[in-house]
């Protein structure tokens, strides 16, 4: 009995001591962080080598100028980033500075108080005036600004000039019927007409939403979101867009196994010169390079062209679907995080960003960093566009946006008719 008692006491003591040490070490570290330095966690998705180095340089430079600030970088691949961000958001612990695409997702974070309202830093300030009001709009909801823009572009076709020339096209078709004819010729010539990351779903979603925009014009989108179009996504124009996508799919224009392919697979096919084109945003050339076996992409052979118009449709080629990226600031972030975002979006650094990865930077005067003719063309398209629609899956709430992506995939796989797919989208849209 005595032995047991001694044992018991020892165990209790051990636990007690362990707990004490543990608690002491915890409080110690938190004290250190709050007193001597401000920590800024920065999550970005620039996984390409040049992006990683550039962002590390930015962080180092900022820390050098502000010795009391420590910036910790987390680099995440696009899909992994979205997943991980959702998890930390639901636990109420946003990173201090992180990638955002604005729209419905950012608005939901804002509603839950997870991102900093930066309106006071922007409205009427030097920083706010350094960019056009329209680009701040993507990151605003309810009249308040929740993130700073960094990049604004649009989705275009990125094509291989040499491969198109092989089937007799020196210019990209501006009309859908002509486009279909070209796809058929490419297919006959044994070239993969279009690379598509159908497994990731969103690349295909852009195709459907662009066709819908060309058929219904801006009015269709505006009326759908305002509720004036009572049919919502079951409007005949959206269904017609699905049917046209199904017709395109029936030509087998995509690479083998596209339904299981990722966006990186898509970029690799264009970057290796195996597929003639992809429908993608302004980051396409950079990602193509990074995923190509030579790490060089197709260089000079690459060109960009606006999405073709559809005969009889209300839309024109000057209406674009696009977006870009920005920096959101977590609600718990210190002032240093705001300063760091200001630093990232200053003219000098925006020029560096544009030169490094071809981002279509938004700070006035930084466009001198954009040297690539394709990037300039996309930038011009955005600057002169008559209507700008943020990517549907980002514009809508995550539940509705996710359903759009899923439903477009069912059209491609032929498991649902376009009417059924649109009904599914409308159900999710009206429910969320």
């Amino acid at each position: 009995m005595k032995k047991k008692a001694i044992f018991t006491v020892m165990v209790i003591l051990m636990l007690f001591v362990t707990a004490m040490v543990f608690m002491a070490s915890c409080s110690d570290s938190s004290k250190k962080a709050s007193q001597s330095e401000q920590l800024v966690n920065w999550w970005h998705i620039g996984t390409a080598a040049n992006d990683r180095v550039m962002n590390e340089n930015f962080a180092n430079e900022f820390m050098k100028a502000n010795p009391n600030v420590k910036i910790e970088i987390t680099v995440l691949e696009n899909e992994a980033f979205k997943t991980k961000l959702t998890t930390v958001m639901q636990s109420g612990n946003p990173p201090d500075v992180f990638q955002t695409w604005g729209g419905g997702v950012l608005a939901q974070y804002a509603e839950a108080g997870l991102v900093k309202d930066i309106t006071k830093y922007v409205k009427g300030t030097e920083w706010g005036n350094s960019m056009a009001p329209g680009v701040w709009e993507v990151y605003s909801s309810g009249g308040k600004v929740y993130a700073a823009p960094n990049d604004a572009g649009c989705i275009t076709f990125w094509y291989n000039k040499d491969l198109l020339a092989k089937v007799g096209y020196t210019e990209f078709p501006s009309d859908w019927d002509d486009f279909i004819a070209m796809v058929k010729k490419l297919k006959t010539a044994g070239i993969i007409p279009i690379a598509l990351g159908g497994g990731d779903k969103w690349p295909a979603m852009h195709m459907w939403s662009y066709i819908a925009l060309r058929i219904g014009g801006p009015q269709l989108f505006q009326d759908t979101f305002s509720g004036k179009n009572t049919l919502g996504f079951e409007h005949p124009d959206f269904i017609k867009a699905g049917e046209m996508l199904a017709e395109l799919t029936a030509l087998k224009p995509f690479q083998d196994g596209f339904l299981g392919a990722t966006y990186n697979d898509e970029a690799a096919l264009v970057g290796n010169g195996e597929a003639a084109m992809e429908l993608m945003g302004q980051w396409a050339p950079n990602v193509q390079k990074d995923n190509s076996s030579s790490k060089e992409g197709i260089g000079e052979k690459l060109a960009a062209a606006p999405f073709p118009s559809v005969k009889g449709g209300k839309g024109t080629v000057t209406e674009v679907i696009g977006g870009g990226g920005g920096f959101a600031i977590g609600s718990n972030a210190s002032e240093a995080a705001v300063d760091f975002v200001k630093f990232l979006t200053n003219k000098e650094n925006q020029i560096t960003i544009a030169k490094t990865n071809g981002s279509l930077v938004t700070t006035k005067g930084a466009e001198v960093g954009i040297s690539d003719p394709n990037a300039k063309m996309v930038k011009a398209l955005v600057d002169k566009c008559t209507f700008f629609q943020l990517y549907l899956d980002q514009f809508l709430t995550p539940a509705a946006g996710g359903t759009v992506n899923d439903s477009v995939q069912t059209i491609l796989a032929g498991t649902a008719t376009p009417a059924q797919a649109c009904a599914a989208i409308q159900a999710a849209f009206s429910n969320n």
Partner: protein
Amino acid sequence: MAKRHVYKGLAGRANFWTIAVLLGPALILFTTFVIIPVFQAAAFSLYKWNGLGPMKNFLGLANYQQFFSDLIVQKALSHNLIIAVISLAVELPLAMALALIVSNSKFKGAVFFRTFFFLPYMLSEVITGVLWQFIYHPQYGLITTLHGIFSPDSPVPTLLGDPSTVLWAILVVIIWKYFGLHMTIYIAGLQAIPQEQIEAATIDGASKTRIFLSVILPGMRTAVQLSVFFSVLGSIQLFDIIWAMGKGGPVNASETIVSYMYRVGLSRFNIGYGSTIAVCIFVICLIFSIIYQRLLVKEAE
């Protein structure tokens, strides 16, 4: 008598504290990270909630109604069932056969092969998924290369990109990954069988099949029960490999119930319905465990 003595001792006061101290930490951790979340999920499942901010929209049992009429849930559960059946019908017999071979003392390379067959199990699920994605890749993969050599004229196999083949392609990976674990369980089970029994049966003139059916298999009852249990529960909870190899797609063709829960709850910010699915998975696992335990107890009696 000895048994009673032990119980009496444990009831003593000093021993109460010993037990409390020894069990306490584990109990606290288990309660915090398992028991409480189960009840939390049950509470979430009654709301329409995006996981951000306070819960406002009380739905009652509407999420459960949706669960039972959700076609994707039915599809996903049928995939879980297929995976469980294939695991039991293919993976376990394969593991048994290999276990018998590599535990044969006359077999020279036994130790090497034991380690070799166990290797896939030591890889993480995500690495396994990425590895097999390379193998299955329709443009640059090993399968495509082999296909190009042996039958260049037929269409390229797009195993992960075709809704009709994706589940089977992933099943191959699952079997490849987990048979080593079951083989190891069986090897342990085989070692517990007294050699004398097998020798006695051999002397009595029993055939090899007879020995297997009447001596080895009954002797391995516990090992088989354990591996069946792991295999079925593993099939219900399967997620990592599915997610790594195609996120349950294309068009839900490789969706399992857990991957669907993850998609709905975390990707779609629909924590309410996601929790409903989680609660239902919990109930399914619980029912299976209880029935299985009952059956085993009955059998033992």
